[in-house]
């Protein structure tokens, strides 16, 4: 995802002289392509995130479309007030790009888990949150960021994410169907979508029931306005993020606010696992969001519960 991001940004920067890239001393082997091509529109702000966001707001006030690139929680939580006061209150065109969504940095430990960011960022006024599930969505997200001035947060995985969409471009303005299904529906954000696909495949093989999967690339109520929740009897949400205020929480709020009557089950990271060491696959497993855990939730809510009702 990070290479897709930087390659697309670099290409777009050839046509748009207002694109400026600020990095927080991160992106070795990734950001140089932009720096070498556009040195006058690049800055390494060093390891100083408060200053990095503050100066990015200043650059945006001067007419630049600023992209700030860093990893994990460094460009969000470390400098939250600069985002809140300088960028969001000022309604400035700054896109904060963080590599390492969820457990992408796995063995690097809790400091590098970006698992509370959606919750915290989405409380800020006017910010748009982009959470692509694969490199195709990343490409569309960069274009979306350029066409939508104002504060944005782009949450990226790391590298080598599986391509889910077989098209070159996707519309980020509505839920994107990545698996057909009629009665049950799984809404997912971010690269954890690949676990959803595996779980639903296994579920279909075992019970011959299709569960629809939709990728939700922007955490925005606009995106859900046309979505037919009532088409489904049960809705599930999946995120590589904690429960409080995250993606499932966002869906739950939408359902309540719009008086939608539907059975909702949220699948999220159990924080009991945050002190464990392991890679992304391991951490997804121990925190209850890998494909087996998802399969088990589907089974308990669709198969076991129906069986109970019948008996």
């Amino acid at each position, binding site marked *: 995802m990070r290479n897709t991001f930087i390659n697309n940004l670099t290409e777009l920067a050839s046509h748009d002289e207002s694109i400026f890239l600020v990095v927080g001393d991160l992106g070795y082997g990734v950001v140089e392509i932009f720096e070498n091509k556009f040195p*006058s*529109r690049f*800055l390494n*702000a*060093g390891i*100083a995130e*408060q*200053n*990095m*966001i*503050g*100066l*990015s*707001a*200043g*650059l*945006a*006030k*001067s*007419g*630049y479309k600023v992209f700030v690139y860093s990893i994990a929680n460094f460009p969000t939580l470390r400098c939250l*007030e*600069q985002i809140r*006061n*300088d960028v969001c*209150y*000022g309604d400035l065109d700054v896109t904060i790009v963080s590599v390492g969504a969820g457990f992408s940095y796995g063995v690097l430990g809790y400091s590098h888990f970006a698992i509370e960011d959606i919750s915290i960022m989405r409380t800020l006024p006017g910010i748009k949150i982009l959470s692509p599930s694969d490199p195709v969505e990343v490409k569309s997200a960069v274009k979306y960021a350029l066409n939508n001035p104002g504060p944005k947060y782009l949450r990226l995985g790391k590298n080598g994410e599986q391509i889910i969409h077989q098209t070159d471009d996707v519309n980020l303005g509505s839920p994107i169907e990545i698996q057909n299904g009629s009665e049950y529906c799984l809404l997912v954000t971010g690269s954890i979508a690949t676990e959803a696909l595996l779980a639903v495949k296994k579920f279909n093989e075992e019970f011959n029931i299709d569960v629809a999967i939709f990728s939700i690339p922007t955490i925005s109520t606009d995106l859900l306005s046309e979505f037919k929740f009532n088409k489904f009897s049960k809705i599930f949400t999946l995120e590589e993020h904690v429960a409080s205020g995250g993606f499932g929480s966002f869906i739950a709020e939408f359902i309540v606010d719009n008086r939608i009557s539907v059975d909702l089950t949220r699948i999220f990271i159990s924080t009991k696992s945050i002190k464990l060491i392991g890679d992304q696959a391991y951490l997804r497993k121990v925190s209850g969001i890998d494909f087996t855990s998802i399969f088990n939730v589907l089974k308990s809510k669709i198969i076991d519960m129906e069986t109970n009702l019948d008996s």
Partner: protein
Amino acid sequence: MENSDLLEIAYKARVSVLKMTHKAKAAHVGSSLSVVDIAVQLFSQISKRDLNDQSRDIVLVSKGHAAAGIYAVLAHLNLIPFEYIDEYCENGSALGGHVTSTNVEILELSTGSLGHALPFGVGRALAKKRKRFDGTVYVILSDGECDEGSNWEAALLASHLKLDNLVVVIDRNKLQSLKGTEETVALEPLSDKWEAFGWYCTKINGHNFSELSAVTQSSGFTSPRVYIADTIKGRGVSFMENNMSWHYKSPNTEDLEKALMELGKP
């Protein structure tokens, strides 16, 4: 503008500060009286006030709590309407107790949490450099605010980038929120610190327009500059000067009358 004009504006602004904080029962009268002369110097001397002119000078107020002082100065320089300061802090009015850009575009960065304007100013100054625009970016800091790490992050980068179009003025009134700056987290030797960060640093009298004029005269510098402006918190009103309680208290009717008598026309 002649120094006599600046003194006249500063006097009127101080009168307004006292009336505004009295009427609104607002805090930070001491900080506001402290910063008035610095603000008069900067907002009266900056070139080109057309906000669309990318070569204009920019003044950023980092010590947002001195809002009454800043607004009073802007009103007396005819940069904001007088009704704004008449309605200071009233429900539904334009101006609250911390510096806002919402209804005052010339201020461009809303502050109130300390340590925000210098990083923003680094971005503004860097953009001028990269786009080859003239103009200087001025940032008014409080001295207590130098406790904030974000200022030192910005100071480090500004000198690395050789931002000779960036100027900081520190309102050095030596009092912060509970006690003096040196009792709280000692700042001295403050100029040594800025110099060690690669800034040109000099001390001036922050209530003397002949000395303050150095701030807006720039030529031949190759680094960012900082002026440590020696000031008195509560300047102009004897019972408020250097008195911690006027960081919080607002003048009652009796205080106001006494204070206005004391101010004395220039």
